[in-house]
Structure formats: structure tokens, C-alpha cells
């Protein structure tokens, strides 16, 4: 059974259709890169996975549960799916450790001691243990994003969603974040990443999904996608972003 399965998912904002009949699958342990021009619905697509964006048609099964179903306990489902945002979205009024502890204590019911231990281990892993007591505003963008990844990992997620995790970063900080993501991918984490980092895609992705105007135009293995993209739109997109 696939970890994440989209079956003809469609979504509208008013009369404007942002997702058109999207169908794809993410197996356990797979790393999927979603790319495409801006406004093509990539972010909307992955935000559907944890129910942050509701959709009107089709079905979306995550870990055996239908996301759109009224009976699905969304907070419970979301707790199992980690998400990393373009703008980090750390909680500015809490220390780094408190950011990592919050949901562990409130959602998973771990004790503060147990949570802190877990948080410290993860901060160690992303190389930020020395910043455990600082506040998000005192960290650089790259550091904040690594904290955000650690915060998502603290919930022991079964899959991770990345929504343009490096788009808001200064160029010199992109690699520190990608390194953490590569490591995660190599450990077998199921990942769905919206990103334009084609180097990352080449390195660890199993499949690449190319979207344009709300449609999944291309859903191919990495080698096929970079070798011989079938659609003209994907070819154009690739030639535009790979030129430099």
C-alpha cells in the first residue's frame, strides 16, 4: 500500500481551478521532488497531504486514511506527517528547545524531560545544539530552517513534506539545509519535496513530478526526467532552470 496516494484530486479557488485531476503515488521510503513554474499548484498539492489545503474532488489516502473524509481526525494524522515551510514558521515567542518540545508534550503526551532529551538529540544531529536556548530571531535563515526540520522530526513522522525549504534562504545557506535533507533521504525517510534544487533531485530523488497550471504534466523516474522528459513544457522548464 502506498504511503500517500492521490486519486484524481481537484481543487478550486472560487472558479479558478488550482489542481486538475492530480493522480500519483508515493511509496514508503520514496523521495519525490515536485517542481514546476510558480503558480503551478505544487505547494497546494503537498499541503493537501496533511489537510492544510482542503480539496473538492477526488480522494487522497495517507497512511491508509482518507484525508478528505469527515471522520478523519486531522490533528492526529498531521502529527504523523512532518512539514517544513518556505518561511520556516518557527514560533518566535519560544526558545529553540521550546519550539521542538511543544507538540511532543501537547500532542504526543511525552513528558517535558523526555521531550527535551529528544529535542537535544535532534538539535545535535542538525548541528545546532549550541543554539538550544536561543530564540528563532537570533538565528540565521539556514539555522532556522534546520531547527524547523528538527521540530518536524521530533514527532517521529512517517513521512516529511517540504514546501520550498530553500527558497527564502540566502545562497550560502542553501547547502546546510540540503545536506540535512540529503541525509534524511539516505536514511530512508519518505519525502515529498517541492523544490527547484535540481542538484538535490539528481542526488536523492526517486521520482520527479512536474506540474504546470494545476496539472501533473510529468511523473517520471529521475533518470527519465532528466534524460528525456516527454512533455514539451517540462523540457522548456528544465532548459530555463538548468542553463546557469
Amino acid at each position, binding site marked *: 500500500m502506498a504511503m500517500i496516494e492521490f486519486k484524481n484530486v481537484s481543487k478550486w479557488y472560487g472558479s479558478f481551478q488550482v489542481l486538475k485531476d492530480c493522480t500519483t503515488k508515493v511509496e514508503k521510503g520514496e523521495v519525490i521532488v515536485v517542481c514546476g513554474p510558480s503558480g503551478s499548484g505544487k505547494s497546494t498539492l503537498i*499541503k493537501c497531504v*496533511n489537510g*492544510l489545503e482542503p480539496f473538492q474532488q477526488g480522494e487522497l489516502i495517507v497512511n491508509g486514511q482518507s484525508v478528505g473524509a469527515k471522520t478523519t481526525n*486531522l*490533528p*492526529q494524522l*498531521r*502529527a*504523523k*506527517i*512532518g*512539514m517544513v*515551510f518556505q*518561511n520556516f*514558521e*518557527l*514560533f*518566535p*515567542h*519560544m526558545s529553540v528547545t521550546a519550539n521542538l518540545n*511543544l*507538540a511532543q508534550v*501537547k*500532542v*504526543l503526551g511525552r513528558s517535558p524531560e523526555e521531550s527535551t532529551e529528544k529535542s537535544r538529540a535532534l538539535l545535535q544531529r542538525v548541528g545546532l545544539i549550541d543554539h538550544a536556548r*536561543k*530564540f*528563532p*530571531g*537570533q538565528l540565521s535563515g539556514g539555522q532556522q530552517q534546520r531547527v524547523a526540520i528538527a*521540530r*518536524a522530526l521530533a*514527532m517521529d513522522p512517517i513521512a516529511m513534506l517540504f514546501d520550498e525549504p530553500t527558497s527564502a534562504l540566502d545562497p550560502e545557506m542553501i547547502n546546510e539545509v540540503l545536506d540535512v535533507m540529503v541525509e534524511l533521504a539516505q536514511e530512508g525517510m519518505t519525502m515529498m519535496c517541492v523544490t527547484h534544487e535540481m542538484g538535490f533531485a539528481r542526488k536523492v530523488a526517486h521520482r520527479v513530478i512536474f506540474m504546470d497550471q494545476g496539472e501533473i504534466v510529468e511523473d517520471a523516474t529521475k533518470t527519465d526526467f532528466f534524460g528525456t522528459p516527454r512533455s514539451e513544457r517540462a523540457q522548456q522548464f528544465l532548459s530555463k532552470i538548468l542553463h546557469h
Partner: protein
Amino acid sequence: MFTDFDFDVIERALPYLWQGMMFSLGLTLLAMVGGIVLGTLLALMRLSSYKVLRVPAGTYVNLLRSTPLILVIFWFYFLVPIAVKHITGDSYAQGIGPFHSALIAFTLFEAAYYCEIIRAGIQSVPAGQVQAAQALGLNYWQATLQVVLPQAFRNMVPILLTQGIILFQDTSLVYVVGLTDFMGAASKVAQRDGRLVEMYLFAALIYFILCYLASFFVKRLQSRITPPR
């Protein structure tokens, strides 16, 4: 210039003025706490996606905000006993007394104003923060209490205080139900002793000092609760 003035009148009236001040401060504090709690709930209702919560809260706020405070105080004082009589059928039923009716009137009235302040404060918290809280599995109340409100209140502290100062000054309206606050006390002494200028100067000075101290305190509080960056 002050030769004609008799500032002793103030000293003699101090215990009475003190009583009035305690009343003003007490009523302000209670109505402020009650108003903020109720105002927060109203704000959450107004921002709710459910119409059954949004519409009544909106109606309440608009109704109260278009009514003069003095009228609300008046109403409560006279209408509550009538309502109690009507409901219990006890024709001897007493009201809840001028203080309690004033307190309820102030709380309900201030709640409408606090609601609008808090609503703006909540909306100032970026939507991404709510999404991040939700993505971690926090439910509505957890996300609201842990993530949204702490940030919203931090942004709102100065304007909440301003509203508190307005409330403090408005407590003088309780004279309509026969209560005596600081301003009322000063006014009564002034009329009784024929020392209007002295008393009103003194009252103005006290109001200024208190409000100035309050804003100083809020500035310090604000720098303390702002997370380092």
C-alpha cells in the same frame, strides 16, 4: 497667585478621595480582566468559520459599540431587577446592587471594544504560524492558546493599555447609579467646600500621574516580553 487657594481641603478629604480611588482602580481592574477574557472569546467567535458563532458575536459587538456607555450602565441597573422579577415571578426581587450591575455593564461594554482590538491582534499573526501549529498536530485550542494568542497579545499590549486608561477614566460615569469613584469623590468635596479649582487641579494631577506611570510600566513590560532577536 495661589494665595487665595486652600490646598488643605485636599488633605482633609484624602481618606474619602482614597476610597474613591480604590473604587475606580478596583472597578477598572475587574472590568479589564473580564472584558479581555470575554473580548478574546468574542474575537475568536468573530473569526470563526462557523456562521452560528460569527454572526451573534458580530451583532453583539456592533450593538454595544454603537451605544453610549452611560446608557449601558443605566440599563443594567434598572433592567436587571425587572428581568429578575419577570423570570422568577418574585415581585420583591432586588437587583444585584449598583456595584455589581456597574461591574457587569462595564465588563460587557469593554468586551465589545477589546474584541475589536484582539481581533486585529489575532489577524496580525501570520497565517503560516497557524499552519505550522496545525501541521504539528496541534488542535484548534492548542494552536490558539500556545501559538496565536501569545503573539497576538504581545503585539496588542500598548493598545490594550490605552483602552484600560479610557476605561479607568470612564469609571466616573458610575455616578448615574449613585456610586462614588475618585472623580465623584473629588467632585463632591469640591462642591461641598466650594474649592472647585483646587480639587479639579488635584484630580487632574492624579489622573496624569497614574496614567503616565501605567504607560511607563507597559513600556518596560513590553521590552521584557519581546523575544530577543
